[in-house]
């Protein structure tokens, strides 16, 4: 696809040589990579399955054992990982835009921590039904989001993007402490499960988890895509955004809440997976997707691919042991974070 055809901003022969965002090439590459990784995710594991058998098993043909592994064990796992990656990346991208900070993400903003407190509270009080855990995570994320906004507003006198980030870090630390206190008295067996969940895992994925998260990603992610042009304007700063007709405070709040619920849904499904929401939108921008709508689409695809890959590493790096998913994403994310800090400096 030619460079000129590869963008959607006005094509104008009088201004040749103008740089434009080009996002089609990285998008196509990302989709191909995601498909390949999904097939590998279905094929590789404790029992390796030839690719041809995987493709047959996806449509229900072939050996019954292979079909069961592909469709019941690995299928939901791979899809859940993809949805988590997509959800966290879109959430992070939207938060970065509305807070005008390329280092913002649900994990750093305390939103994931709040969701985790909600989910852990539900489990501790015996509400272990996945839907109850999901709703509790939403409630926790909403409380964290509102607390962070209120703290920032009280301290700065108005909604201040930098103050929001600082308040987020503090609320996140507080959430962690609450979880540790809640888990301190838990029996050893439960503790290991809870800890595992705190580090993120898709090892127990079910089709039910996939369905619930898919709905959340479609609803909240879709709403953020709808608001993408508002994000373009909000990313300019409060006054320029107001000058261009944005309802700065109201739209910022909507986006903050939508992005928080999206992150909370991933937390309820698989626990805390950090740094994806930070790293992926920055990669999407570096690949040329600068406006928010293409950036969020490219981020969703790359985030999905990254998490499917991370899950593959988590279950193959030290077989038969599994590594926590959140640890793998942090191992990838932290060096990136440091490089990004250096670039910003």
């Amino acid at each position: 696809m030619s460079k000129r055809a590869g963008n959607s901003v006005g094509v104008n022969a009088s201004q040749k040589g103008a740089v434009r965002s080009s996002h089609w090439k990285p998008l196509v590459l990302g989709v191909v990579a995601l498909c390949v990784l999904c097939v590998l995710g279905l094929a590789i594991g404790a029992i390796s399955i030839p690719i041809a058998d995987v493709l047959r098993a996806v449509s229900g043909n072939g050996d019954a054992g292979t079909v069961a592994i592909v469709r019941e064990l690995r299928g939901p796992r791979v899809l859940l990982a993809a949805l988590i990656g997509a959800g966290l990346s879109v959430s992070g991208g939207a938060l970065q835009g509305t807070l005008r900070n390329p280092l913002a993400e649900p994990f750093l903003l305390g939103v994931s921590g709040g969701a985790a407190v909600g989910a852990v509270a539900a489990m501790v009080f015996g509400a272990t039904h996945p839907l109850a855990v999901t709703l509790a995570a939403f409630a926790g994320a909403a409380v964290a989001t509102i607390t962070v906004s209120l703290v920032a507003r009280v301290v700065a006198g108005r909604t201040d993007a930098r103050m929001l980030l600082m308040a987020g870090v503090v609320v996140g630390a507080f959430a962690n402490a609450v979880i540790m206190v809640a888990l301190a008295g838990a029996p050893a067996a439960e503790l290991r499960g809870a800890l595992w969940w705190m580090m993120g895992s898709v090892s127990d994925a079910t089709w039910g988890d996939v369905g619930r998260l898919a709905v959340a990603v479609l609803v909240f992610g879709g709403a953020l895509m709808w608001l993408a042009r508002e994000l373009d304007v909000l990313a300019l700063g409060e006054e320029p955004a107001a000058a261009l007709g944005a309802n700065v405070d109201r739209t910022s709040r909507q986006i903050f809440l939508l992005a928080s619920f999206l992150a909370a849904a991933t937390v309820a499904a698989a626990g805390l997976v950090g740094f994806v929401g930070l790293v992926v939108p920055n990669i999407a921008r570096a690949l040329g997707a600068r406006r928010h709508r293409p950036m969020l689409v490219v981020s969703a695809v790359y985030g999905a691919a990254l998490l499917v890959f991370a899950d593959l590493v988590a279950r193959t790096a030290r077989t038969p042991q599994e590594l926590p998913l959140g640890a793998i994403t942090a191992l990838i994310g932290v060096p990136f974070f440091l490089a990004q800090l250096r670039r910003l400096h």
Partner: protein
Amino acid sequence: MNGITFRDVTVRYPSRPIAALDGVSFDALPGHLTAVVGPNGSGKSTLVRALLRRIPLERGNIAVNSATLGNMQAREFARTVAVVPQREEPVLPLPVREFVTLGRHPHRGALSALSAADISAVDQAIHLAGAEDTLARSTDQLSGGEWQRVRIARALAQQTSIIVLDEPTAFLDVAHEMAVFELLDSLARDGRTVLLISHQLNLVARFASHIVLLNEGKVAARGTSDDVMQGAILERVYKWPLVITRDPAVGAPSLLPLRKQRSTRL
């Protein structure tokens, strides 16, 4: 009445006892370049924040083309008034053309593609602001002057009847600064309302048909350049010795700040 009407505008920041704007009244009329001048902290930028509704009015009223600001939808406001705020950082940079295209935001829906009118407005704005040579770059790769011109282009792309600029020539060299003043003059001649906030008293005296001098949140003087550019008034407001001369080319009053007399010699 068309243009912008400020009536008894009073604004107070929560943490400060003294009002940032105290009973400010004046009109910016179509076909005129109206300039607001005054020392640092006199309330010039607060005026823009109040116009953008980023700070509530304690008292008074601002009207845009006879419509009270409080009753206007945000998008309707942005289709009527284009504002170039004083400060803006390209934190999440965009290619220049896409940045200027954001000026079409108030005219577009959430999903609509760019119309032919949008594209032509953007082309025209880039041409008027003299920003053609920046199109091969993104907004984080511009000099201070180029960044100002690109921001002016974005405001022009809004195609509004009113344009407000807060120190648009702050980083511009002489030629580019003159080009901006000539552009604002031609916009006013085309019948638009131009409200300029500036520290460039001498250029303002040459170009503006109406000058408002702010001091400590109040209007210290207003009128033509001859009404406002008076030595006694300016010395009192700026707290610096100065003389008023005449611009040899056009006869407009011109301010010359003096050096302070040294009380002791080494």
